[in-house]
Every structure is written in C-alpha cells, then in structure tokens.
C-alpha cells in the first residue's frame, strides 16, 4: 500500500532533477564564464554543454572587422584543463590556448570579416579504469566597437 504513496513522490523527484544538469550549466556559465568577459559587452548568446574528459565540441561563428572580440571558454573545476583552438576556413590554426598556459580568454580583432571555427577539447587525466570526469563547459563572446 505504501508504495502507492511513495511512487508519485519518487516520480516527481525524477522529474524535478531531470533538467538539473542543464540548469547547473546555465548557473555555472553566468557565475564563472560571464565575468571573464570583463569590459567587453556580452553578445547575449549562450553556449554550454556537459563534456566528458577527452570529448570535443565545435563552434562556428562569423566575426566582423568593425569589432574587437573576447572569447571566454571556462570548464568546471572538476574537469581537467580545457584546450581551445581557433581555425580559419582553410583549417589553419590561428590560436591555441595550449601555448598560453590554457588561458581562459582570447582577445582578437580582424582586418576583414571571417567565419572562424573554435574547437574545444577537455583534456584527459589519462588514468585507465577511472570513471571519466564530466562537467559543464561554457563558451561566451564579448565585443566592443573597434577604436
């Protein structure tokens, strides 16, 4: 009999927490990634995903010659370092944060407008048999008019 009282509560619990990782990701993006844009105006777009160590994400965006940009890419503390590379349309690497001690931000401007590709990868702790770490990675863009 008691099962019929507890089942609905259990189901409600499952429902309430089914979207909790998404909500946590949003809170993380706002709390930890947004401040990295500092004096740049956040464009208002939201890009965040739960990634597992070793996993990659790609982002395509057009950047304009009239603007100065800052990209901020931040992973939760429980994740290993987050690498990111910026590539042009011919897949030439224009920037890699690995060479800048895994910097979370990159400031840039363009002589002519370009569509660029960002490749974000959570590096690996490399311990076989361990449960791989997973956590939120947020990508945000800030801009200001070129001086």
């Amino acid at each position, binding site marked *: 009999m008691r099962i019929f009282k507890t089942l*609905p509560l259990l189901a409600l619990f499952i429902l309430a927490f089914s979207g909790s990782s998404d909500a946590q990701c949003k809170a993380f993006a706002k709390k930890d990634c947004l401040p990295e844009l500092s004096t740049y105006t956040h464009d208002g777009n*939201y890009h965040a995903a739960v990634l597992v160590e070793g996993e990659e994400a790609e982002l*395509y965006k057009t950047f304009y010659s009239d603007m100065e940009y800052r990209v901020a890419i931040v992973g939760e503390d429980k994740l290993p370092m987050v690498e990111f590379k910026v590539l042009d349309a011919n897949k030439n690497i224009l920037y890699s944060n690995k060479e800048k001690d895994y910097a979370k931000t990159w400031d840039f401007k363009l002589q002519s407008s370009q569509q660029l590709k960002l490749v974000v990868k959570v590096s690996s702790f490399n311990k*076989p048999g361990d449960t791989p770490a997973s956590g939120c990675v947020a990508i945000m863009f800030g801009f200001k008019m070129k001086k």
Partner: protein
Amino acid sequence: MNRKYRLSSVILVVFILIISLFTGCKGGKKGSDQNVTVKMPQDNAVILQDIKQAEKIFNALPSPLESAMLIKSAGARFDANLLNPVTNVNTYVTNKSQALNLGVYTCDLSFASLYEQTQLLIDYMNAAKKMADGLGILKAIEQDDIDKLEENINNVDVIMDVVSQTFMNSNSYLEDNGQPATAAMVLVGGWIEGLYISTQLVDMKGFNGNKLVGRIIDQKLSIDILLNLLKSSKGNPAVDELIIQVTKLSSVFDKISIKTGPVRSEFDAATNTTILKSEVKTDMTPVTFKELSIVVAEIRNSFVK
C-alpha cells in the same frame, strides 16, 4: 487506500516518467546548442571511445545586440519607421510568431538603445517581455529589468548589459528546457530583422564603398550557420517553413562573391590582442542587392504580419 487513488498514482507515475524521458532527449550527436548528459560507463574504455567520436556542434548566429551594433558601427542613421510596431504585439499568439518576434523586438530594442531612443527602448523591452511571457520563459525579462532601464536611461553600457542579460535568460531557458527549435527561431527572427533594417537603410546613391553594404555582404558568411542551426531542428513544421525561406535567401547570397586571402595572426603585446590580418575581395552588384532586399523584406514581413 481505495482503488481510485491507486489507479491515479500509477497514471501520474507513468505520465511523469514519459515527460522526463522526452525532456531528457534532445536529439542526436550533432544537435546544435544542446546540453548533453552522458551516461556513466560499465566499460570505461569502450564508452570513452564512443564519447571521443561524439561531436557537439554549436552554430552561433550574431545575436540581435551584435546585429544592431554592426548597423551602428557602419554609421547608419536611426529610422523608427523600420521597426516592428509594438502595437502588433497582441497579434502574435502562436509559438512560432512569438519566438520570431522575440528576436525581432530584441533587435529593435537593441537598435533603439544604441541610438539612445529612450522611450522606444522601454516600449520595445515591454514588447519583448510579452513575447517571452507568451513562450512561458520564466524570469527572462522581469519588472526589475525594466525599472533598471528606466533608472539608467542615459547609460548605454548599463542598457546593453540589461539587453544582453535578458536575451541570455531567454535563449538559455529555451535550450535548458528542451526547446532548441524555439531558441533557433528567436535567433533567426533577430538576425533577419537586423538584415532587414540594414538593407532598408542603404542609400543607393552611395552604393559603392558604402560601409553598410559591406556589413550586408558579410552576412553571407553566416547563412550556412543559419541553415545548419535550423536543420538541427528539421522535422519541426515551423522550422521546416523557415528552412524553405532561408534557402531562398541563401540562393541570392550565392550571387555575392567573397574571396579571402590567407589569414595570418599578429600579436600586439601592448594591448594583449591578436590581430587577424587578411585581404578580402567582395562583389555584389546593385541588381543583386535589390533582389536581396526584396527577399529579406518578404521573409521579415512574413514574420511580423
């Protein structure tokens, strides 16, 4: 306990589990702008291999705020007659029309804010709020945000922060609540409105060398991003209609030529900024521009009607 209660409990459980199943499923590996949860493995090596092959792809369109900033930076004038009148707000009752016009009104309010059109800004923020409320987006735009705008009506930086925050609240809510198609429609509405305003502001007498024409040509670089964003929600009837419209627009953009030379990075230590240097040659004839303007106006007018 009576049988009726037992039966209703079972129905409730089944209903909730079905709902949680559907809200948890957000598409395949190549879904756009999606948060993906990963099941923990029994055999880590095998599962990790699968995970490594998985891809998450984000198609990032310029936000309405960025679109408005591009128009302003090109030196264009402000024309309130080009905006979607706020009096239309009560005519949008479907999910599609509210999503598209949330994007449209957000672009309009960004445009108004950059040109310090204070009363219009408040009116358009209220119109955007109405669209967000209609879509069930909780706390996207609150009365506090509108009060903050009124209190800082002459402070462009604060205004842009509020616009950016409210837009992020909207699109993150939609993404996080399993509505990527609606989120995509909001972005499409904003992007088309920015393109519509730009094309309407071009003075044909000064076509050659017009900076605004240059920014319109640049939008060709985003058309495949836009199509990919929409295709990630293919099968949604509202999105399928938009794909047809945007494909028509894409065929006009195909007539515009952009040739970019090699890109080289130069680091400026003084400003800690990288400069991406490249030469670009573009070509758009006035005839193609007029065709583009007509197609953009057709699409935009179908959004705001």
